[in-house]
């Protein structure tokens, strides 16, 4: 069964949620992945959305466009206020967070604020929203993103959401006692951080993707392990379930 890049990304991200109790997910692919995980490997997964929804049951075909509209709420277990939702993360209750960004650097720092100079930017982007909070406060954060060279840059123009900052223990030193960025999940493969220097390296490849292809789509050098594991292709079951969640393909493209 063939699949698009976005579908592959959604399936791979969903698999990361096996055994996870709660996921802090934004709209789009992250949310679709979370719903897919619920319907496959993580039936007890509680989806948490920053607009203030815990444990909703998304309605297929009526997926939300934003994190705080009523489409995000159907049959939720609780609707805490936005601030309180993030405070659950700060206290340590929220397990995995999914984030993205317009730029990402070798230390997992994310930029969703500006391209270019901050005061007079070339492109003014929407801003952090909850991304900064999720990456600062959840137990483990995964970046879920398409893999593009303009996105994977040697240095982000602005650190909207802190990954490992300048590597080593600089994140801890800045006061970020908790949480970690555990992995970058893209449509080409997964990237992970060196446990010491906290720089990104290739972790795994998706079916049919070469190391060269990943490197070509990354704006900085990626260390490559000797034997790179290859991802299991999306199953028919996974793809069918995925497509039933977003039948109008608002988010699967």
């Amino acid at each position, binding site marked *: 069964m063939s699949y698009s890049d976005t579908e592959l990304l959604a399936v791979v991200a969903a698999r990361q949620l096996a055994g996870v109790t709660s996921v802090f997910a934004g*709209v*789009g692919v992250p949310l679709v992945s979370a719903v897919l995980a619920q319907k496959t490997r993580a039936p007890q997964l509680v989806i948490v959305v*920053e*607009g*203030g*929804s815990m444990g909703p049951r998304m*309605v297929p075909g*009526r997926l939300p*466009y*934003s*994190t*705080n*509209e*009523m*489409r995000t*709420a*159907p049959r939720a277990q609780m*609707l*805490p*206020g*936005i*601030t309180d939702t*993030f*405070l659950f993360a*700060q206290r340590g209750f929220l397990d995995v967070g999914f984030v993205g960004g317009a730029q990402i650097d070798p230390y997992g720092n994310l930029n969703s*604020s500006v391209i270019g100079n*901050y*005061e*007079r*930017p*070339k*492109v*003014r*982007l*929407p*801003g*952090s*929203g*909850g*991304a*900064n*909070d999720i990456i*600062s*406060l959840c137990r483990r954060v995964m970046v879920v993103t398409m893999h593009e060279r303009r996105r994977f840059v040697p240095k982000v123009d*602005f*650190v*909207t*959401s*802190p990954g490992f*900052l300048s590597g080593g223990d*600089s*994140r801890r*030193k*800045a*006061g*970020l*006692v*908790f949480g970690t960025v555990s992995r970058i999940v893209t449509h080409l493969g997964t990237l992970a951080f060196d446990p010491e220097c906290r720089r990104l390296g290739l972790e795994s490849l998706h079916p049919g993707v070469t190391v060269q292809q990943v490197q070509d789509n990354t704006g900085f050098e990626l260390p490559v392990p000797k034997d790179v594991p290859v991802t299991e292709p999306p199953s028919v079951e996974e793809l069918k379930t995925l497509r039933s969640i977003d039948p109008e393909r*608002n*988010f699967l493209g």
Partner: protein
Amino acid sequence: MKSADFVEARRRLEAKPQSTGDKLTTLTEAVGRVRDGDHIAIGGCLFSRSPLAALMEVLRQGRRGLTLSRNLMCYEGELFMASKAVDGLMTSWFDIALPWGLSLKLREEVEGGRIRFEEWSHLGLGLRYRAGAMGVPFLPTLTMLGSDLMGVTDTRTMECPFTGETLCLVPALFPEVALLHVHRADRFGNCQIDGYPHMDTDIAKAAAAVIVTAEEIVDEEEIRRQPDRTVIPGLVVDAVVEVPYGSFPHECYGLYEADFAHFEAYTDAVKARGTGAVNDYVERYVHGVSSHEEYLALFGEEVLERQRRCAEELLGPR
């Protein structure tokens, strides 16, 4: 962007005549309390329970030099920029949502250096309102630490006197005016909200003046029948107005869904004709009408009814 500190903010509250009496009024009179140069904090979030009727009236009354703050700001921010009503925006995110692309108007204004744009994290701004609501000068948090947001905002770091850890302190925010839209209120201003609380209660307590529009003004006995549903007490409210569909075409939880087709038409126009289309929108939806009733008529009964059915389908009848 400056804000009163907690001492000034409280003095301002104490200097204001406080009322526990009837505050029911008209939209025109209520919004007439907004002054040029005020900082307005906007309730709801993005396109959920936005006080759109009140915001349109602020524009209709021609206010200038405003600062707007909102946790996630939607296209209402574009209308204020197009109207040259606003000098500064404070938010954690500005856009409509994923399918509608970046805000061209925001890009033009910020990239052209024509507006002060202050960005916080979502929680960071939420804690600013909460600190204001609590009447304290700041709240400690672990968010924003290490990021470049620290350098472009009035945050401080401190060494925790109990643990030695580094903390981020976000300063309290005390807006001059809170504009809120709620599901129901009584004439004394006691408000109840269904579904998402968003940041409305914190904003109400933090602001110097609170203007509420409600889908429905109910008898005070209905509020008193379920006091555990009240989230804003009349004590903190200055004016309350009955405005059915007061958030439209944004959504009001359980009552009507956002009109996505309207968002689409709006952004399509901007994509096709540039930000002049925002001015056209302001002409038609703000100045082309003289009341919220006329504004709703531009959408038509059928659309209102359709969006009401969408909400009911999604969440079930109330």
